[in-house]
């Protein structure tokens, strides 16, 4: 006699097969995020090293990341530009990539880290519905770039504690900040994964005696600190001088780093190293809570009718025109300020000059793609 399989076993089995198929498909989709966009170093790049050269514990982990060194060969000061502390803030990454591909310093040494939190590039934030890639047209073809998460990938660091306690200050923040690189500074040698990345960056700054550190960010347009330079008290003079230089081309403010907000680069790097710590914010619609449809176009054009409306209601801290705040404009702000930080700086170690960089207007007129290499 043939035994009949009960109906509920049959449906359960079918569902299990479906689950396996789904898992396979989703694994293929989510693993794509682990591929990094190609970066084509320009003439200025003299060496590419890894962060683990300064903090070996990172070697072989998802937190190790490329450090591009642009040494002019002329004695001078050194500067570190951090892009991709938050991989959901593309102007930081794109500015760093543009420096790597385009910049040729004339004096001093420029260190550029395009993917400061490399792990955070390998995933996107749940409920933010971010695209996995965004696309930029260069003069001959389209290049893709990785859109990531604000925080370290949970597959590298999990679980989060319910409350994140910043190690050196005891400050308490929401548990989700445990994986936020910009709440982990100055980092800990034996800390969690994100604290180790922060520690590696702090080590690099100390050992290379970096005079200026610029951490490039973006913020949602409704946020209070946006279109701003946030400066550690030691770096306030430099920030104000720069403000004076760039005021004609852009609306921007200087804010002093709050002394009671810990773990951020502009506070902790300034306190624990000799570097002049600066952080920059531009307005990124794709990061906010008001935007309409979420896709690569929103990331690149910054064009969003809801933000324009909210601006009309007086709910934003920045002007939000109907044609948006494009990635080109945001990068132009970052590049212009980075360049001016260098030209305004007069350190004992000598000057640093980032020759061969386009002006604010040139970047806006020709688009960021014009200053990137073509896809190879």
């Amino acid at each position, binding site marked *: 006699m043939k035994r009949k399989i009960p109906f509920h076993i049959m449906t359960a089995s079918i569902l299990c097969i479906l689950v396996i198929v*789904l898992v396979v*498909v*989703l694994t293929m*989709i*989510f693993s794509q995020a682990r591929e990094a966009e190609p970066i084509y170093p320009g003439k200025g790049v003299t060496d590419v090293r890894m962060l683990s050269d300064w903090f070996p514990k990172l070697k072989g982990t998802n937190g190790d990341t490329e450090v591009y060194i642009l040494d002019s060969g002329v004695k001078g000061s050194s500067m570190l530009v951090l892009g991709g502390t938050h991989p959901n803030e593309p102007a930081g990454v794109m500015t760093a990539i543009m420096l790597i591909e385009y910049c040729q310093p004339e004096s001093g040494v420029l260190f550029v880290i395009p993917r400061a939190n490399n792990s955070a590039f390998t995933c*996107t934030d*749940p*409920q*933010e*519905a971010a695209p*996995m890639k965004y696309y930029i047209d260069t003069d001959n073809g389209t290049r893709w770039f990785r859109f990531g998460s604000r925080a370290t990938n*949970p597959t590298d660091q999990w*679980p*989060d*504690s*319910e*409350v994140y*306690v910043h190690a050196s200050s*005891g*400050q*308490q*923040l*929401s*548990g*989700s*900040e445990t994986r936020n690189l910009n709440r982990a500074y100055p980092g800990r040698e034996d800390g969690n994964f994100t604290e180790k990345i922060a520690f590696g960056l702090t080590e690099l700054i100390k050992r290379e005696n970096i005079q200026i550190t610029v951490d490039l960010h973006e913020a949602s347009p*409704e*946020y*209070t*600190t946006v279109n701003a330079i946030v400066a550690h008290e030691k770096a306030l003079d430099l920030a104000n001088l720069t403000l004076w230089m760039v005021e004609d081309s852009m609306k921007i403010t200087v804010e002093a780093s709050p002394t*009671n*907000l*810990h773990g951020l680069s502009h506070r902790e790097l300034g306190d624990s190293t000799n570097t002049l710590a600066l952080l920059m914010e531009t307005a990124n619609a794709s990061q906010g*809570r*008001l*935007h*309409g*449809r*979420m896709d690569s176009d929103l990331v690149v054009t910054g064009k*969003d*009718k*809801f933000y324009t*409306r*909210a601006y009309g*209601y*007086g*709910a934003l801290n920045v002007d939000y025109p109907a044609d948006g705040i494009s990635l080109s404009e945001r990068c132009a702000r970052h590049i212009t300020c980075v360049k001016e930080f260098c030209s305004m700086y007069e350190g004992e170690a000598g000057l640093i000059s980032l020759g061969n960089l386009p002006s604010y207007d040139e970047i806006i007129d020709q688009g960021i793609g014009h200053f990137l290499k073509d896809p190879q």
Partner: protein
Amino acid sequence: MDIELICLLAMLGSFLLANLLLKLPVSISMVIGAVAGALVGGEGIPLRHLFEGTFTYVDTMLIISSAMLFMTVIQESGALEALNATIVTKLYRHPALMLMMLMLVIMFPGMITGSSTAAVLSAGALVAPVLLLIGIPRAKAGAIVAIGSIMGMAAPPINIPAMLIGGGVDMPYIGFDGPLLLLTLPCAVISVLLLGLRHCRNLDADKLAESLDLEVGKKYGFRLYIPIIVLFVLLVLSKAFLHFPQLGTCLIFLISAFIGLFTGRKFNFWDKALKAMDTTIPVLAKLMGVGMFIQIMTLVGARGWIVVSCLSLGITAVYIASLTIMPAFGAISSYGAASVLGVPFLLVLIQAGGHNDIMVASCLSFLCCLGDLMPPTALAGNYAAQIVQLKYKFVLKYCVVPFLICIAIALAVLLNSSFFSFLTV
């Protein structure tokens, strides 16, 4: 009409259609709503987005599951019966005090973990039988547990919506203890007295003794309570001492449950664990559905539409929306309310001036927490109803008045935030 609004209507419409007309479970209805939104938005069926959204709740899932396992152990080992007997025989002469003590017990796990579900499933399940014993009707007992767990979720030291709102504007989680106590304690006391006092003015000691099981307590004595003590000690230690190893609520529940296997009546753990998960799976699936729903709302721009529409009506409307839409958003998710609405609302209120930022953030987080009563998701409400073995709609009826009192208190504090600013030190 904006395409984003059309998407939103399609999502809500197909959700309600599936849930109310086709009588599908909330979880599947949420998935249907999400898929409908994606289709109308021209995204096809975006598998990646659907399942990415669920990951918001992975940690919540683990906490709920482990809390359920802990509760099962406590019940099966006999600790629950023994505890009920002790509380009632010691305190029956002072009903108001007893009710307030019981309310505090319900709140405690929520205060420590910031999760109303954890509160309902641990202390709520301990206290509910006591409430029934002293003569409070099932529905009202469920309402007390539901409200208590929400007050616990909102009360300091841990209030996750407050952290989410604060995190969105870079406000450190400092100085929230006073404001949150000001909001939660009066609401908790008023609610429990309002619902319960009438029923337990004259308690008869002998009658109570009849319905209590005094045997288990005598047989195993103090060691029955060891798992509960371990749970509280570990929860408090990991919050009070920052250098104590951070095990996480989930693991703490499981460690306590494991200890409970050896301190009371013996039972087949595997069978009971399966049963516990059996009732938990639909709740977990509901969370998966919520995650998908919010992710698609963001993808098609419906989230933006909701927020911008609230902002478009000016400052008075933001007040009204904080008091109505924000708790109502709990029908989807209270954490969602905090991050989707709480952050922009706080920014608008701060810009309007005349407020104490921390007081305002506390009020908004408190209002978000109330959302855990909102059906159909109603994380706190549904579990509380399950504990008193009723459908949630019967319990909900008794939650309405306390809910309105909470809203009124929140409004009073919100409007006088600068007056209360001394509490934020």
